[in-house]
């Protein structure tokens, strides 16, 4: 039953990667913006939660609730004041500005919090688990996976059931025409990035409570997230979840053979999918 356990743990890990990736997928889907600072923003949110937990003695979940509006405002301001200026037919400015932002966030965190490994304590939840037949499932991984599904259902509802979602889709399809219909693309983009930061905060909650983190781990999370988005196919949130699960299962399977192969196995799975389906498994938008 070892292999079944490996696959289940991999699927649950995939939930975490899908959480990392959902915000990226959202931003890329709406404005074709590749945010290379996404991983560092997750780490930033994790430090924000850590500060709230240690300074105010809050429960991590409550701390995340407090952090969500802060991160939304940060995302809104970042997009409105900085990133909107970089959008255009040339892909270079957004890539380079967000790359610079990634370096700035990493080093600001290093300066403030040092390179020490941190962890947000979730109390008894950390070690709690459920026995399902022959398999032992950790409560935190399960919670992560359920949160990922909730986030994706939520994003799909916003996208396809609300007027905000209609504005998102309209701006994504044709920015100029959407502008003629009374939509202000600047604000729509800012709201989208704000929303992505809400997802980032949820991802940060699980990043911080499940494993150690330090200011430099952002880029690696970014790479996993991107692999999930690319595997899933542009513009599909469920595809992103599938992509996360593929990376997660490949990593746990690799680790079960040799612990040193965990990360490598994830990357190789990504390259193999790329070989077979260059546009991802569930491509929706034509780009």
């Amino acid at each position, binding site marked *: 039953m070892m292999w079944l356990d490996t696959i289940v743990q991999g699927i649950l890990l995939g939930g975490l990667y899908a959480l990392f990736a959902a915000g990226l997928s959202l931003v*890329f889907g709406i404005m*074709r913006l*590749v945010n*290379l600072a996404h991983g560092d923003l997750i780490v930033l949110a994790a430090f924000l939660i850590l500060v709230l937990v240690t300074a105010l003695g809050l429960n991590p979940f409550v701390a995340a609730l407090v952090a969500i509006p802060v991160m939304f405002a940060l995302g809104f301001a970042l997009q409105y004041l*900085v990133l909107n*200026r*970089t959008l255009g037919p040339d*892909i*270079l*400015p*957004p*890539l*380079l*500005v967000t*790359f*610079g*932002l*990634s*370096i*700035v966030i*990493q*080093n*600001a965190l*290093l*300066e403030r919090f040092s390179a020490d490994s941190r962890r947000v304590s979730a109390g008894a939840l950390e070690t709690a688990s459920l026995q399902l037949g022959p398999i032992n499932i950790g409560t935190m991984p399960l919670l992560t996976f359920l949160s990922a599904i909730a986030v994706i259902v939520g994003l799909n509802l916003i996208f396809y059931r609300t007027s905000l979602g209609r504005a998102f889709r309209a701006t994504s399809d044709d920015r100029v025409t959407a502008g003629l219909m009374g939509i202000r693309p600047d604000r729509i983009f800012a709201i989208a990035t704000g929303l992505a930061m809400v997802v980032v905060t949820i991802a940060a909650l699980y990043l911080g409570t499940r494993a150690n983190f330090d200011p430099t781990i952002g*880029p690696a999370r970014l*790479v996993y997230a*991107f*692999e999930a988005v*690319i595997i899933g196919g542009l513009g599909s949130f469920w595809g992103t979840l599938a992509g996360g699960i593929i990376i997660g299962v490949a990593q746990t399977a690799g680790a079960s053979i040799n612990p*040193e192969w965990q*990360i*490598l196995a994830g*990357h*190789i799975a*990504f*390259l193999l999918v*790329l*070989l077979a389906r*260059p546009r991802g498994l569930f491509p929706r938008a034509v*780009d």
Partner: protein
Amino acid sequence: MAVEALQSFRVETRTRLSSAFLVVAIAVLAIGFAAPLFSSRVVIQDLFFILTMLVLAQCWNLLAGFAGLVSVGQQAFVGFGAYTMFAAVILLGLDPLVGIVLAGLLAALLTVPTGFFVFRLQGAYFAIGTWVIAEVARLSFAQWKALGGGTGTSLPSGATRDMFGVRWIADLFGWRASQATDVLCYWLALALAAATILFIHRLLRSRQGLGLAAVRDNQEAARAVGVDPRWMKSTVYLLAGLVSGVTGALIYVQKARISPDAAFSVTDWTAYVIFIVVIGGIGTIEGPIVGVIVFFVLRNVLADYGSWYLLILGLIGILVMLVAPRGLWGLFTDRTGIQLFPVRRMLTGASTTKTITGGTHG
């Protein structure tokens, strides 16, 4: 009449200033080669660092600025080249200089399989693809136990001292072997930088360079006039990989100690390089030269402030990209019209002094 008038026009890229600058460039090169005779070892090591970063910056600029290929994974070739050289020296007992040549050849070969993957990805996805490839390379080399695995290894103690030419330089100038090694590495770096700049300049002035600019500016239009974008981009990708591999090997001959995390470092071989190009001016040959000088000055001024250094570098990079996307050299050339390595094509007529200029890159 009309035909005669046409024949009296010529397409040129050279300007009077650039011809004069050629003399200056040759003089700078000559002084550069003579520098070890009157400079301390520390200065030579600094110059070596500047020159190798300049070569990497020119490679990245060729990729991103001229071919529109934004890579964040050039460290794959730097590290691969460095490891190839180490393998040649430690496992095959070859001379490090032979290792450098091998590094270039194998890095060029490596671009074939990696290119096969990353060229399936467009634009921003390409950037991520190159990053994943570099990570795969780093993790794979960490598995190579004969070269120290994850902790890395050092060159055998005599390897660089017995390198071809070191004894000769040491005897000729009366230096110790370690100093002669540094000087040899420096000369190689200087030659590599000069050759890279000369090559890129000639490439951009050639027919292929015109095709490259056409592909970058409008891929569909370029195809319509018979330029094959895939071929152009693959060639540039291969060349950048080759030169990065050679540079990586050269850097690690001088360092003599390698580890996967250092050799495949995204900060050292890509982040710094990107900031050099962006601050100096992307899409020009002069830009990386200006950028590397600014980078070196900032590094020395901020050396004592740890992470503040990268933080400030990042902020400057963002600011330049937002305010002056063509960098410091772009600002300078907008004001003065001066180009030291002109690649812009100008129409000059024998009968009239009026010149018709094309776009920025001709």
